[in-house]
């Protein structure tokens, strides 16, 4: 049985890369449901897809199985063991109508260890049948946490920009797997760099609606937005501090792109470094004391970090022609960035203790890498056959790349929201 401690998990996964990485085999069987004609039937697929996407599980093919168990007592251990399955997730559904058009569903499900012939947990979850995907994500999160020791992210949201044509852009939020998309902003002008506040309530983004880039903060619940920064020149690259009270931003007020920190209410701005080179794409270390950023001060774009108390700067990346778009894992131990080599832009991760670099994707036009809130997955954009930009996830062990389907249009500038409390 695999038991990994929470915060160090991503590092362990990185270190076992190179063929030795293992995935947990699990059978996720259809839940018993007397009413066959509804989407709720798909719950087990949602769960299996979640676990698969993480790269830490390999849901086994159950298409050849004629009869599924619906109760922990019905599991035929030797049969499932023969299918190489270490765990089985099974269950049954009960539906109750509460008024008109308000079908409630109850899932009574069990996670069973086939090797040990032992039930790990049996849990009942209830909710509106319409939200069957959310219930399924919840189940996947519980299983994930039980078997990996780390919090799951299957109930989180992502945000992305969709460009329908050069005069039509929308900022969307959706479930982490691309379902239930909802536009929170429509504009005739480009929108870039959306960033979720760590408290989950707001999104900061850059809009070109004033014929130049300016930064807005939008309340997701109310849709109300405020102009955070409209200083002379370009205003861009918002990055929330871990406590959601401040943002690092980039202005060209003094000529070239420079980093400033401003309170979320737009007051109390101060410059972090003063150079003539490009300083951009700031991102906070989880300790709130350092910013990582990209800069061309050394002749090519590389990633540096600055201690905000001392203004001391240290170069962080050395491999590759250019390195861009830094962000950190929640434990601060891994640097995620865009690496350019041989005209290919790929998502890469650097262990900040050993400085070992691993390329997670193959390029050639990957962009916008960002960690899932537990640091186990990365959301990024890529170009389909070198043309249309799309989004997908890659597991931090590099084993699983999965597209996210959010329909047609150019999908860009994706970002991941925090775990909801």
């Amino acid at each position, binding site marked *: 049985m695999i038991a990994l401690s929470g915060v160090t998990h991503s590092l362990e996964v990185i270190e076992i890369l190179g063929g030795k990485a293992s995935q947990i085999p699990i059978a996720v069987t259809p839940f018993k449901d007397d009413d066959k004609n509804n989407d709720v039937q798909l719950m087990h697929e949602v769960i299996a897809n979640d676990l698969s996407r993480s790269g830490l599980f390999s849901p086994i093919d159950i298409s050849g199985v004629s009869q599924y168990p619906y109760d922990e007592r019905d599991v035929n251990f030797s049969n499932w063991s023969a299918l190489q399955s270490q765990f089985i997730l099974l269950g049954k559904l009960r539906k109750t109508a509460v008024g008109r058009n308000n079908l409630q569903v109850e899932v009574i499900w069990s996670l069973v260890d086939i090797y040990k012939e032992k039930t790990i947990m049996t849990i009942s979850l209830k909710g509106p049948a319409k939200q069957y995907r959310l219930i399924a994500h919840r189940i996947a999160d519980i299983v994930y946490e039980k078997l990996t020791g780390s919090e799951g992210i299957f109930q989180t949201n992502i945000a992305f920009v969709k460009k329908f044509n050069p005069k039509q852009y929308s900022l969307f939020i959706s479930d982490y797997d691309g379902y239930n998309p909802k536009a929170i902003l429509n504009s005739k002008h*480009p929108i*870039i*760099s959306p960033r979720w506040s760590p408290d989950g309530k707001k999104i900061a983004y850059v809009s*070109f609606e*004033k*014929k130049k*880039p300016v930064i807005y903060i939008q309340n997701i619940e109310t849709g109300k937005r*405020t*102009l955070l*920064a*409209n*200083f*002379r*020149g*370009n205003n861009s*690259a918002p990055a929330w501090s871990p406590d959601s009270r401040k943002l690092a931003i*980039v202005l*060209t*007020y003094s*000529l*070239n*792109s420079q980093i*400033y920190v401003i309170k979320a209410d*737009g*007051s*109390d*701005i*101060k*410059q972090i*470094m*003063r*150079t*003539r*080179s*490009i300083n*951009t*794409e700031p991102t906070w270390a989880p300790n709130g004391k350092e910013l990582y950023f*990209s800069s061309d*001060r*050394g*002749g090519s*774009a590389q990633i540096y970090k600055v201690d905000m*108390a*001392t*203004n001391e700067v240290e170069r962080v990346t050395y491999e590759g022609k*250019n390195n*861009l*778009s830094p962000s950190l894992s929640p434990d601060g131990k891994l640097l995620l960035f*865009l690496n*350019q080599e041989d005209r290919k*832009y790929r998502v890469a991760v650097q262990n900040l203790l050993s400085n070992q670099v691993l390329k997670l994707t193959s390029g050639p*036009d990957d*962009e*916008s890498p960002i960690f899932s809130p537990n640091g186990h997955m990365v959301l990024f954009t890529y170009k389909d056959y*070198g*043309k249309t*930009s799309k989004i997908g996830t890659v597991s931090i062990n590099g084993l699983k790349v999965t597209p996210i389907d959010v329909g047609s249009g*150019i999908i*860009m*500038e994706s970002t991941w929201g925090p775990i909801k409390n």
Partner: protein
Amino acid sequence: MKKSLLLASILALLAAGCSTTEINEPMGLNAPFPELENMTADGSEVDLEGNVSGDSLSQTALDELAASGELADRSIYFDYDRYAIKEEFEGLIGNHAAFINKHSAGVVIYGNADYRGSHEYNLALGQKRAVAVKQALEALGVDMSAIETVSFGEEHANQECTGSTCGQDRRADIGYVGE
């Protein structure tokens, strides 16, 4: 001829300056940034063209701009990942500098980048190209407060460009207030 030689040497200096390693000069800690004009508290905006001290083009100037073959070219192209102005664009910049000085015109330089790399870094790169043109104009006597710079990054770029066609997007364009 003399003027163009002077410009060439200034451009060479600018280009050389661009490739050197910059020293990070720390500023006073916690010091407020004195000359930074914040947007107003009531939410009113800092207007792009309103920042420029130069004048809106008069009808005479507009007519001259429209009629002049020399001023028709407004775009300065750059090499991949670069922001040094190439010699072949000295004449173009010189023609516009003369026009700006003659009419005390307000100017906005728009910087652009090709699609490769991140949107934010390309915004910074486009800005650096706009700044290179601004500095070249200043070197020819244009008042720095008459020039505003803005970057569109890769937002106007051809997302499917390949090879040399991407060069069309590595560009700074000269725009005039009031046209």
